């Protein structure tokens, strides 16, 4: 369950507070958050993911109001319960695909489970790239690995920031399908932030900013 209430945020450089509509997503639901550039959708995503702290309001994930967590506790909560996928996938370049996944498990003190990493990557058709350096992957492959990394700790919420805007139609469709099936498998909330019109028809739950 992902619920926001009266959420607002102010950037130091700006005077006016940004306010956001209330969100109420139940477990297993898939949502699309639509908005033009500058509408504050990335800011909202960062608030939901605990990367920014709201000025006012509540972000509740499960039973936790994350705006009240202490910094270290918030870091841990985020790593464990929120999987975030960015528009341009980044990795720790010194590590292989597998090691990047292990790092995600290590940072939240989860057991480093190579079998789970392998099967997750295989389900994304990336099993053969287990020991590849992330810099050797194509953009589509990178996005798939970043999806795998977001899912590795079985988060309650998957947040995706423009996951498809850098991809062509074929890859866009594939990535979308993967996100949906993986989220469904884990009964996680999937919330995609985008201005990509190709996605509009896929989702019945939509929020417009």
């Amino acid at each position, binding site marked *: 369950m992902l619920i926001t209430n009266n959420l607002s945020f102010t950037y130091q450089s700006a005077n006016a507070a940004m306010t956001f509509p209330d969100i109420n997503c139940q477990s297993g639901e898939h949502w699309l958050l639509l908005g033009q550039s500058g509408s504050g959708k*990335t800011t909202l995503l*960062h608030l939901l*993911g605990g*990367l*920014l702290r709201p000025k006012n309001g509540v972000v509740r994930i499960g039973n936790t109001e994350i705006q009240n967590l202490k*910094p*270290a506790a918030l*870091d*841990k909560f*985020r*790593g*464990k319960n929120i999987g*975030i996928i*960015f*528009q*341009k996938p*980044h*990795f*720790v*370049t*010194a*590590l292989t695909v597998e*090691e990047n996944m*292990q*790092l*995600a*498990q*290590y*940072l*939240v003190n989860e057991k*480093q489970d190579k079998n789970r990493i392998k099967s997750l990557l295989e389900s994304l058709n990336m099993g053969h790239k287990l020991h590849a350096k992330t810099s050797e992957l194509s953009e589509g492959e990178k996005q798939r690995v970043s999806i795998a*990394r977001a899912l590795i700790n079985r988060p309650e919420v998957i947040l995706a920031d423009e996951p498809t805007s850098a991809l062509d139609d074929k890859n866009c469709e594939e990535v979308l399908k993967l996100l949906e099936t993986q989220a469904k498998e884990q009964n996680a909330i999937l919330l995609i932030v985008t201005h990509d019109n190709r996605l509009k028809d896929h989702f019945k739950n939509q929020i417009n900013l």
Partner: protein
Amino acid sequence: MNILSLSWKNIINKPLSMLLSLLLLALGTGLISILLLVTTQIEDKFEKNQAGVDLIIGAKGSPLQLVLSSMYHIDNPTGNINLNEFEAMMGTHLGRRYIKQAIPISSGDSHKGHRIIGTTQAYPTLYKAELAEGKIWENKFEVTIGSVVAERLEMKIGDTFFSAHGVGGEGDMHEDKPMTVVGIMKPTGSVIDQLLLTGVETVWSVHEEEGVPVDSANREVTAMLIFCRNKFGVLTIPNFVNKQTKMMAASPAMETARLYELTGNGVDVLRILAIIIIVVSGLSIFISLFSSLKERQYELALMRVMGATPLRLFVLVILEGLILAILGYLIGIGLSHLAMYLLETSLEESYQYDFSSSLFLNEEWYLLAGALVLGFIAALIPAIRASRTDISTTLTSNR
């Protein structure tokens, strides 16, 4: 996967950017380590070889040369003193009162680069030399040899050889009277390991054969190692000998102190140079970590997203500094011991001592501690910066 292995992988992922820092640190620590190794070993050996000798009496000339040649067997002998004159001095009031013991040293001949010393049995006793096999010389032309001589020249008991004139090993052979090895001594770690010992009479006989008859009037030795009864003797005897006789008395302690003072300046300059190199290497570690952070900003923010606390990122960068420091230190120490290994032979030839490349000094542990402190300080500012990575701003600005 853990923070340590991640630090390690970050370093080996960009080996070239870290290479300069590593080499500089290795150079600095290596230089300091080799200075330590050489100076401590030389000072150790010098001290050990002094063996409590208070004074050396020899022919007039350079006191430093007298000490180096008669005690350490490095330099050429200064010349000879007449034994009768020495005994006359011993017979004076001062001599009887202050001199406890005198051991003759008669040098000038050698065998394949190792010096033959005519002396008495008190000389091996002085260095606590024990026999490995055979016996101490008794008759003329019998020699007892040091362990290094036996090993290097592959000599054993019963071997005979002809001594060569001069200490360099290239002089004419005394080809009429062969010398016989009668004993081999155990290693002592002192200069005696490098010598062939025989009686003073043997040296006299060798030179008698050259047509210079030796009788009680012209018996000569190169030097006398003197033990005094008390400190007062150490101060009084030189004054007396230098003013009243044709001989000269030198204090090994004073002369070696003078020698350290002379070479110390050079060692100090090298040491300062090494410290400068190490400081520059610290600066280089700082710069390479700092610039690598710029490239890795997004990575660090990503790690925060994945649950890393600021403290973890701090530790990550500090560990990178420490790993570089340890690597640089290990390479430096490796290089210095390798250099010592390569230098061993040539140092042994010029100093007549064993040098060890496998010796590990306490000071080298201090050097490790120093390198770790350097790595920590160099990584501190980059680490603080890494720990303050702002996730949201970095992620939005670096797309």
